[in-house]
């Protein structure tokens, strides 16, 4: 056994996302706008107005969803830049994505405007500050729907008030494998937070990734919401690291065997399904976090590189990378080849 258990936030908190929901006061909300006989015209106007404001902030790429292939839409979704709902609303929806793929403004998702900042690592304050910059730029010439009691008005009452959703993706292999996730989730719910699996609702514990976010958006200030999520992430991180330490002490040969095998498979496979890739990668990341596996550039850097690989090896991303529309079998072979190379570059060892 090589090192000690990594104690950093980054070994638990994978990514941070801040989202603000806003609406025009004089257009019907997207669900109704779509049914109007002027849908196309209104959508074009809304898109034009937002694009005009954003063009002075930064360089944004405009994607009109109607003109986008299924493949291209899936690619953006896998990169966390757009949502399933935006694709469903494709007749009227659009996305403005910053060139560095950190800011995306979704147009005619559930609300007219969804401003989002997505970053690796854990920094709620920075993410919020950047979204506010975008929000203020748009608010400069667009009067948002606002009510003294209900705050910023949204199509669904679950987003009223601040319209702010702060989410942090957590890697919780030790907590989740100990079987205490359900209890932890119940505790968080009581404090006004939600936990869900990374790959969508009901997706279970794939990859040991869980997203924690605020449940309430009204009656708390933006700062209070960020504080609430911040506190939850700190508590969860502490708990996870303590569980990792216990796991390492209690795990013995069986644990060591499982984690080394995962590295063995990823370093030597010829065919690799997405499911197996997610599962084995979680094991290798856990191995790095526990110091049972090592990485030439350091355990944290190894874990971060594997997180990038998890995105790059999703189906639409593989097709983009390979330049072909591969079948599932084709993707599994491509994934194996790519992962074997990537791991050899990373110089992981045990």
């Amino acid at each position, binding site marked *: 056994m090589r090192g000690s258990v990594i104690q950093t936030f980054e070994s638990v908190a994978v990514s941070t996302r801040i989202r603000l929901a806003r609406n025009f006061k004089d257009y019907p*909300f997207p669900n109704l706008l779509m049914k109007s006989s002027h849908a196309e015209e209104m959508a074009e106007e809304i898109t034009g107005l937002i694009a005009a404001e954003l063009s002075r902030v930064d360089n944004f790429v405009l994607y009109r969803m109607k003109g986008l292939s299924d493949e291209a839409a899936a690619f953006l979704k896998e990169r966390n830049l757009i949502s399933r709902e935006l694709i469903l609303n494709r007749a009227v929806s659009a996305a403005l994505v910053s060139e560095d793929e950190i800011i995306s403004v979704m147009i005619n998702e559930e609300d007219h405007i969804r401003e989002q900042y997505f970053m690796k690592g854990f920094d709620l304050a920075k993410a919020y500050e950047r979204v506010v910059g975008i929000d203020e730029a748009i608010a400069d010439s667009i009067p948002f729907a606002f009510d003294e009691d209900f705050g910023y008005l949204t199509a669904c009452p679950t987003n009223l008030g601040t319209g702010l959703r702060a989410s942090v993706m957590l890697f919780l292999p030790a907590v989740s494998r100990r079987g205490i996730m359900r209890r932890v989730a119940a505790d968080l719910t009581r404090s006004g937070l939600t936990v869900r699996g990374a790959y969508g609702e009901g997706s279970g514990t794939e990859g040991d990734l869980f997203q924690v976010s605020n449940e309430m958006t009204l009656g708390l200030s933006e700062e209070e919401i960020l504080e609430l999520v911040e506190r939850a992430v700190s508590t969860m991180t502490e708990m996870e690291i303590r569980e990792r330490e216990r796991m390492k002490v209690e795990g013995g040969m069986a644990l060591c065997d499982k984690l080394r095998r995962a590295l063995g498979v990823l370093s030597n496979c010829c065919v690799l399904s997405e499911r197996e890739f997610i599962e084995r990668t979680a094991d290798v990341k856990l191995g790095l976090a526990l110091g049972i596996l090592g990485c030439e550039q350091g355990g944290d850097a190894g874990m971060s590189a594997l997180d990038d690989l998890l995105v790059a090896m999703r189906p639409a991303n593989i097709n983009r990378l390979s330049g072909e529309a591969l079948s599932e079998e084709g993707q599994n072979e491509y994934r194996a080849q790519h992962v074997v190379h990537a791991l050899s570059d990373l110089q992981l060892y045990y």
Partner: protein
Amino acid sequence: MLCSNCGKNSARNYVKLREGKKVELVLCPECYKRLYPERDEGDFFTQFLGNTGIKKSKACPNCGTRLSDYRKTGLLGCADCYATFREELTPTVRYIQWEVRHVGKRPTSNAEEKYDFVRTLVRERDVLLAKLDEAAAEGQHALVLSIQEELDRINQKLNEEEEE
């Protein structure tokens, strides 16, 4: 340019879709608001029914959404729905949010003033872009150039507005 309806106020260009075709309108904002309220023909009919005393549940005067629609979809139809159904929605909001009183950030800018101006420019630009496509497809080079100039002028105005 004077309003083609009242002939008194100064007019702006508006674009409407009528049976799939773009129609350009030269109207003052007041006349435009009166002639083209932001709602569908269908909603006019439901409002009409409401006024003749035929019993119907309350509908949002702006978008026609009823509480029964909200109960089906979980979504409101427009910003005015919240004022229309404030009483009915307050318990729902309290259940979901635990609170019914916003305490966070609020809009501060004087966006209202800029909004009409910017929107008119964006609309004009949309019309010009469509014309540009047409002219380019027909190979009318002189027309393409003049439209391009017009577009540059609008884009410059938009930028100036934003820098203020």
